[in-house]
């Protein structure tokens, strides 16, 4: 009888689980949470063994070796405590099914000058992908609009929300620009004898960039005009950029594209971030001199060229670190859908980056680049209680199992569609 009841219960549980509808966003933190006995990685460079971390009213109340506070105690013996990871550039919540289901996609808008486009308004908090990131320790994401040239504003969202108004963490923090390809057409390996085909892509790229520059100049002039007869929404949308309340995220991979990004920073006196940055190691010193940070998209990528060092993308972070460039490590791998972010950092560690530096690349560096470092990105008193606890080394997959996660002190549900389907079929087969 007991068994039957159990089965009935399980049955209903399964039905509910399938829809992912019983994974509720958590309410505001009420009780003080004290995380004890774990190793705290603060992302400021410090590692506190047997540390005590107190979360109160959604904020980090204290971090150290002891506390006099009382509250719910989490014993983290043998575990590691980190700031929540930040996905620095993504189409999360805008793209559901990668290919073949156009209706599920809202990440790519038409038009060259989409400065007034905002990713935030299309961000779908009910995307099935989101929960699979939380359970791997990713708590914040910068959601980018994609497109042709100027693609619009990204916003930072927290990944435990009912809707986008609820999710917003920092609205419209970045304006996004794609630098054109700027490379001559390929030489085909089957067709060695063929002519160049097509025009001069470098020149085409440069003229497109010049058009963007003219657009920005027009915008600046417009914004300086006191009395306007007509409101230009595209130009209005650029006001925060010129006032340095927003950064220009320039998507650039090869060195010539990155040089263009630096040029934008100088010409318009704006804050520029390079996104992508495959060849950033080639221009690292220049990036450092101009204080341009980099979001590295392409960690688990092939080298750009046959002749490149076979481990180039793996060691690029260590090279940027050495050159003093501020950088974040991202994950834009659309087949595994961004949840391998910590392992990208793990690879960087295997190829020369220090573990705490690698942690910074996923947390405080990303926060600085996204303009949210006052609120989050490290375990420091007063910051938002965005915290994850891992069974072991976060960067090494076999031990990287997140047991607890807090967004603004709210303990979030780590289930997701995949864990639910896992349960469903464990149930079917009666296996552990």
């Amino acid at each position: 009888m007991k068994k039957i009841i159990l089965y009935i219960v399980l049955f209903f549980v399964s039905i509910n689980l399938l829809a992912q509808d019983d994974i509720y966003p958590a309410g505001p933190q009420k009780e003080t949470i004290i995380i004890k006995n774990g190793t705290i990685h603060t992302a400021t460079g410090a590692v506190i063994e047997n540390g005590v971390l107190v979360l109160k009213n959604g904020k980090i109340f204290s971090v150290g070796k002891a506390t006099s506070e009382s509250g719910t105690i989490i014993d983290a013996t043998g575990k590691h405590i980190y700031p929540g990871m930040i996905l620095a550039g993504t189409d999360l919540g805008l793209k559901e099914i990668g290919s073949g289901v156009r209706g599920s996609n809202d990440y790519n808008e038409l038009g060259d000058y989409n400065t007034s486009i905002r990713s935030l308004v299309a961000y779908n908090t009910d995307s099935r992908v989101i929960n699979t990131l939380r359970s791997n320790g990713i708590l914040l994401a910068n959601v980018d609009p994609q497109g042709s040239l100027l693609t619009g504003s990204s916003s930072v969202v927290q990944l435990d929300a009912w809707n986008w108004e609820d999710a917003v963490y920092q609205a419209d923090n970045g304006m996004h620009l794609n630098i054109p390809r700027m490379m001559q057409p390929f030489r085909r390996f089957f067709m060695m004898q063929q002519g160049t085909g097509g025009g001069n892509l470098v020149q085409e790229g440069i003229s497109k960039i010049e058009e963007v520059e003219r657009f920005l100049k027009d915008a600046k002039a417009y914004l300086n005009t006191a009395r306007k007869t007509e409101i230009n929404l595209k130009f209005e949308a650029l006001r925060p950029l010129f006032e340095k309340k927003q950064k220009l995220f320039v998507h650039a991979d090869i060195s010539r594209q990155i040089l263009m990004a630096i040029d934008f920073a100088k010409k318009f006196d704006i804050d520029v971030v390079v996104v992508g940055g495959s060849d950033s190691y080639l221009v690292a010193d220049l990036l450092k001199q101009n204080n341009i940070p980099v979001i590295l998209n392409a960690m688990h990528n092939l080298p750009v060229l046959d002749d490149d060092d076979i481990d180039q993308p793996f060691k690029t972070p260590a090279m940027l670190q050495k050159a003093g460039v501020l950088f974040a490590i991202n994950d834009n791998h659309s087949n595994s859908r961004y949840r391998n972010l910590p392992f990208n950092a793990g690879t960087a560690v295997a190829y020369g980056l220090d573990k705490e530096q690698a942690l910074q690349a996923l947390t405080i560096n990303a926060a600085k680049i996204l303009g949210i470092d006052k609120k989050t990105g490290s375990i420091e008193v007063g910051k938002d209680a965005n915290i994850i606890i891992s069974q072991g080394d976060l960067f090494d997959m076999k031990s990287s199992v997140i047991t607890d996660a807090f967004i603004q002190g709210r303990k979030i549900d780590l289930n997701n569609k995949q864990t639910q389907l896992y349960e469903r079929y464990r149930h079917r087969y009666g296996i552990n």
Partner: protein
Amino acid sequence: MKIKLLLAITILLCGTTIVSAQTTFPVNDVADARTGYYAFTNATIVKDGKTTLDNATMVVKDGKIQAIGKIAAPEDAVVIDCKGRFIYPSFIDMFSDYGIPVPQRTSGGFNFFGPQQFTSNTKGPVNWNQAIRSEVNAIDLFSVDAAKAKQLRDQGFGTVLTHQKDGIARGTGPVVLLGDEKENLLILKDKAAAFYSFSKGTSTQSYPSSIMGSVALLRQTFIDADWYKKNKPQKEGLNLSLEAWNNSASLPQVFESTDKWTDIRADRVGDEFGVQYIIKGGGDEYQRIKEIAATKAPFVITLNYPETQNVADPADARFVSLKDMKHWELAPSNPAYMEKEGISFAISAADLRDIKSFLPNLRKAIENGLSESAAFDALTKTPATLLKIYDQVGSLEPGKTANFLISTGNIFDENTTIVENWVQGKQYDVNKTGARNLEGQYKLTLNGTEGSNNYILAIKKNNQANVIAKDTLTAQFKPDGKLISLSFSAKQQGKTFLTQKPDSSSAGRLSSGSAIRLSGVDYGNIWEGVGTDANGNTLTWTATFEKELPGKKDTIRKKTTAALAKITYPFGSYGNEKMPEQETILFKNATVITNEKEGRLTGTDVLLRNGKIAQIGKNLPTQGARVIDATGKYLTPGIIDEHSHIAAFSINEGAQSVTSEVRIGDNMNPEDINIYRQLSGGVTTSQILHGSANTIGGQAQLIKLRWGADDEGIKFKGADPFIKFALGENVKRTAQTTGNARFPDTRMGVEEVLADAFQRAKDYEAALKSGRKDVRRDLELEALVEILNNRRFITCHSYVQSEILALINVAEKYGFKVNTFTHILEGYKVADRIKQHGSNVSTFSDWWAYKQEVKDAIAYNAAIMQKMGLNVCINSDDAEMARRLNQEAAKTIKYGGVSEDEAFKMVTLNPAKALHIADRVGSIKVGKDADVVLWSHDPLSIYAKALYTVVDGTIFFDREKDEDRRKSIREERNRLIQKMLASSRSGAFTVPVRPTAQVVLHCEDHEQNEGILEVDSYDESL
């Protein structure tokens, strides 16, 4: 009566000229028959590669050579004095499309997402496939192209074998002479050779869409033609293409290739069907000259060297690969390599951007080591012999066609010019001006109002002149055939031998009115004419040759002495200068992950000998082995990737839903850099699978990652053959925007495609077994019959539970087993049924959500299937991820709690089992292949790096030596960039940089993260 008959016979015998003088063509003029009777006297006559006659005479009549030797000129012949001249047989180009219209393609070919054309658009009773055009006889299309003929004659050619460069079977081509007479008189042989290639040319039919598809079509057509000949099958009806194929089988068979691997591929197809192709090479044969020589094929090679690229900007130069730059440097050595290796080859003027570069490029080949005699043979005797026309052209012999060149000297010397090119006894001028050597010192006498003035006139290089009075004066000098014009200023200060082109307009530098201007006629050693002096008064003048100029006559050709790029295996970056060799290796004191019941052994030694694992134990004696200290390190079997798409030139033959006839093994690319990159990730064996474009794809090829081996050398020999199947979205072409026309369009249809294919295979097998003699061998069904008989095994791309069950049902109905379900992301839903059927499974660790059919994919899939007792593999399907398969395996620990030992087996022993090679590889066991990896850390950790990757006891990857390779890449790149810049500066034709793309092929299944220079496989439409 008798006398009459005798007379008639006499006329017939002796009077052939009289009879043959008749033609059907009416003359719109007064008849003007000529015999063309010439005697070329005092010439150096190069009869052939072996015989040169000095000061000899050649007699030509009626377009034929009548006599050659130290003979007197016949009295009734026109005598042409060739003193100082050389006479050569003119050249033969056996790979031309001269006089044949260039075929135009009406629209694009196969595109994975594009529209499809299933049948041929060619009208008439021809072959089913539009690329089989054996019925084309280029003689029917031929017409004289006077302008092109002149261009070819100017480079020394007199005879060409022409054809229409279109299709896989291209039909026949005639040998024609490069005259400008009626076509009727120019045909040496109407069907001299048959032509083939792997390129379908203008065919708009979808099939074939890949290199391996082209190979399959060619092979099947061999079979079809033979079947057609033997059976005259009623249901086939008349097939002109197959008839023509059979009729041209006895002709020389010329195969157009594009590169060294295609050369070898073509030769293999020829070998299979008893044909020795004459291969028109791609110019990179030197990179694999031993393999090329082993084909025993005669070659036609071109002199189409890569252009100099503008590498001045480092941002541009970065994208030009070492491989391309090395080829740029070494391409002119290709003919020399062919000669050294004893390969029979002809040289063609095909593929040149500018035909005028032919002779200069030929000289470049000679500078790079080609002997003059080999060059000469390659342009005369070799092509003539290959085409069986050596009795008519290719040397100077009485009775042969009077096709010859008159040049000013040795044809291979830089300063030699071709004066005339005679075709069939008819004279064509090539370079009269350049031919007349004016160089020398002349006495110039001006007779004018001021009396007679004498100067010394020095002419150099036919276009530079100095007039020497008190000073040396630079003159403007312009010889124009028979006419001479000369001007100089008596006041101008000049430098000796200022370089000036004859028609450059530097005359403007002379102040007007001060120049003495002369115009006259060249009478040989005396020039004579009229002119005006500096004051405008008329004068007469003569210039008389006095003596030759002092100094060197010919610039001595500099042989290239500077170090050239090394040929490495592979030819591009990270290649081996010398192939690594099998060694006896002792790994000391390692943690050994055996994958056997011993599990992990600590502090253990492993000895590799003769390519096998020889001994495992503690404190093994050195036994002369190379000892590698493995203390603190991990020794494991090499990683085996069940699903890979590297190392091949094409992956998908998606033009039909069933293409079991195509074979990945027909188009291996052993130079794919990803082989080396994956060695650095510990991979030693990969199954290279056909893509997922269609339901029944092509035959797979198992390889070992022997970096530097050739396309046969990388194959894993002796393994069971596999074939790729696919289900679901890709085969119903979901992602394409233009609508799908290819059956099937639903999973319902996919199931029927499978059932239909196996039903046809069963019927085919029954027909074969019945002993009927008229059964056509069908390569497509043959592969399916192998499946039915457990001689070929299926790896099936699959995602959702419905399609998995559907295939299992078809398999069980037709009595075969699905060996492996690959991807199988919903395998966890039907793991019990898969287990019951008995399949292996091979999946991704954590991919999902990239399309509708993977929205229920879960990272726990592998763990569930493993716990359900399936043999689970983790595969890559991704050139990048394959470098980290050990980490992918480790994810099954995180997702689902698989034990460490079982997790590691998913990328080693389990794929070995799935591929039926577990007796050879997959674990550390005495007697198995020495395919091992030494890791810096536990390979299930993200921090682990492969330090050594060993295949068959040969170290193919050594992380320390990798540093040396990087260094040499940097140095060699720098040297070549500098050399290219210098070449640019010294005036070489220079083009903008052409980035070298990395071509990464895959299923077209999902977006993948590759380098920036990735080219999608489907950009390449063949």
